[in-house]
């Protein structure tokens, strides 16, 4: 295990930049998440760290050792591929054993067996160990792929790279494994880089995360830092479940008037309001709007409301019922609103 540093990393495919000057330092033993939409450059980052792809420019450094030009097999990294990349000609058990038997890794047979059964237990694939990958479902294949990366934890792996490793599992397993992965990583104390497009997953497991948009790093920080201080509207628009409401403040509108009244930054062009930071009310004041649709989610409900600056999602208790088309008043908790300037960059607000 070691610290991983990416120094002004750039990767072009043809003329298309996939990574643009990525600069980040991943700490030793950290669970680091790369968060971004599909195509943002998450997989490319992992592949460059692994040595599968060579960067067009910049450096990858493990500890104090530059890695450029060193092939994957000599970097001692573990990786779960987004496309699984299982060995279809051998059994699941043999797939898991494959990295443990690589040349130069003197791991005894008992130790190999112990590791395989431990990982198989964790991923609930013990009954599948004798099957071939072609006899597995998609989710089972993904777990084998994850297992092949995890089975090496604590054998001196410098970094474990997980490329959307639980994206194709069912909701129950995804939720459960999320926690297990975190636990496993802490126990083995391996530096882990985890790519995910899923907000809940990314923020649940990360020590720190990096928000990647179109190959550029937009923000690096702990989940809390990013939630309380999103760097710009693009980042703010990717986080939250439901997502943060971003409303344009045009100078003459009611929304802008109320925002200023409650202390908005004079240069603010956009206001961000968390779905939990607004109340709905039928009687008095606030921002006038119309109920668009209601999604009941057990105890809570998400109400979508058309307001002058756009459409908001507001999380309320489901004890109140709202009908589509009904006029309603929205009361944002202005003291917790986020403000962004005309260029999208954060300029203030967002106290906890």
């Amino acid at each position: 295990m070691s610290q991983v540093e990416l120094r002004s990393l750039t990767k072009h495919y043809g003329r298309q930049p996939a990574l643009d000057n990525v600069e980040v330092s991943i700490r030793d033993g950290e669970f680091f998440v790369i968060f971004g939409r599909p195509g943002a450059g998450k997989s490319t980052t992992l592949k460059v760290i692994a040595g599968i792809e060579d960067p067009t420019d910049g450096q990858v450094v493990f500890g104090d050792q530059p890695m450029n030009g060193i092939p994957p097999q000599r970097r001692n990294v573990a990786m779960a591929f987004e496309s699984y990349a299982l060995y279809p000609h051998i059994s699941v058990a043999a797939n898991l054993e494959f990295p443990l038997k690589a040349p130069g890794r003197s791991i005894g047979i008992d130790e190999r067996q112990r590791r395989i059964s431990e990982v198989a237990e964790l991923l609930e694939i013990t009954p599948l160990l004798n099957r071939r990958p072609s006899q597995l479902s998609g989710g089972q294949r993904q777990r084998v792929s994850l297992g092949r990366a995890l089975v090496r934890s604590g054998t001196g792996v410098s970094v474990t790279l997980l490329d959307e490793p639980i994206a194709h599992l069912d909701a129950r397993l995804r939720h459960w494994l999320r926690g297990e992965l975190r636990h496993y990583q802490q126990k083995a104390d391996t530096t882990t880089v985890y790519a995910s497009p899923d907000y809940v997953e990314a923020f649940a497991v990360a020590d720190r995360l990096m928000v990647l948009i179109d190959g550029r790093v937009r923000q690096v920080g702990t989940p809390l830092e990013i939630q309380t201080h999103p760097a710009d509207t693009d980042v703010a628009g990717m986080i939250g479940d439901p997502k943060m409401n971003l409303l344009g403040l045009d100078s003459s509108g009611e929304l802008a008037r109320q925002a200023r009244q409650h202390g908005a930054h004079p240069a603010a062009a956009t206001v961000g309001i968390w779905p939990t930071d607004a109340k709905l009310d039928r009687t008095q004041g606030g921002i006038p709007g119309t109920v668009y649709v209601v999604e009941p989610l057990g105890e809570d409900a998400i109400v979508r409301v058309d307001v002058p600056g756009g459409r908001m999602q507001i999380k309320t208790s489901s004890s109140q019922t709202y009908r589509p088309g009904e006029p309603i008043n929205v009361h944002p908790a202005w003291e917790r609103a986020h403000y962004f300037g005309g260029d999208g960059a954060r300029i203030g607000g967002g106290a906890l």
Partner: protein
Amino acid sequence: MDRIRRLALLGVWGLFAIFPVYWMAITAFKEQRDIYQGPFVVPGVDFQPTLQSWEYIAGTGRDQILLGFGNSVLFAAVSSFLAVVIGAFAAYGLARYKYRFGPFTNSDLSFLIVSQRIMPPIVAVIALFAMFRFVGLLDTHFGMILVYTWFNLPLTVFILTDFMSRIPVEIEHAAAIDGYGKFDQIRKVMLPLAMPGMAAAYLLSFFFVWNDFLLALMLTFRDAQTLPIVITALSAQMEPRWWLISAIGLLAIIPPALAAIVLDRFMERQVLRGGIR
């Protein structure tokens, strides 16, 4: 196509495909006069089967036939193996790397290699004869294995390049991540996954060597004679000994048929399934 027509087609073709083989088989148990007074189709009814040809094969002609048979098996087995191994590595290169020699790139290289197959052997044999005589390879086992490897290499490269490029590159990357160097990646992952292609390439190569006549005719005369040459020698009589030729022809089916039966199970496997999403 409905079921009946499909079965009718298979039936008719089956008859057409198998009858000549049957004819050869019964001819191997005939005497010369059974052949010339024929057509006799049903053994025991039309004619009395004899073992004349087999006695000849086991007796007078044994050494010569054994020599041709042994040479043919040796050349086919060894040169096909070499062509598949060399071809697999070249195919791997062509499928995975970008080459550039001046203006020439991968597709030109593939074409260069495959184009040798396009050349009718008749174009090459005259010069080949002169070259082999010059370096002293005429009528040697080594020379024949060399020439047959050359003969089959374009075919194996052609088949295997297509096969290798179908193997997802991620699987190879996974092997690199798992700690295996380039050579081990090819040996432990690529080659097993290319097995169906290699089996097919080996089988076709085997068939081509086994069936070759022209090259052996030009380049061998005694020690390295192959079975077809031996048969030609046996038939160069006043009237061809059909019974003997048929008997040897029957024996000659065994090695390629064995190769086909053994390799068939490898071609059957759809090994690539389940590797990637």
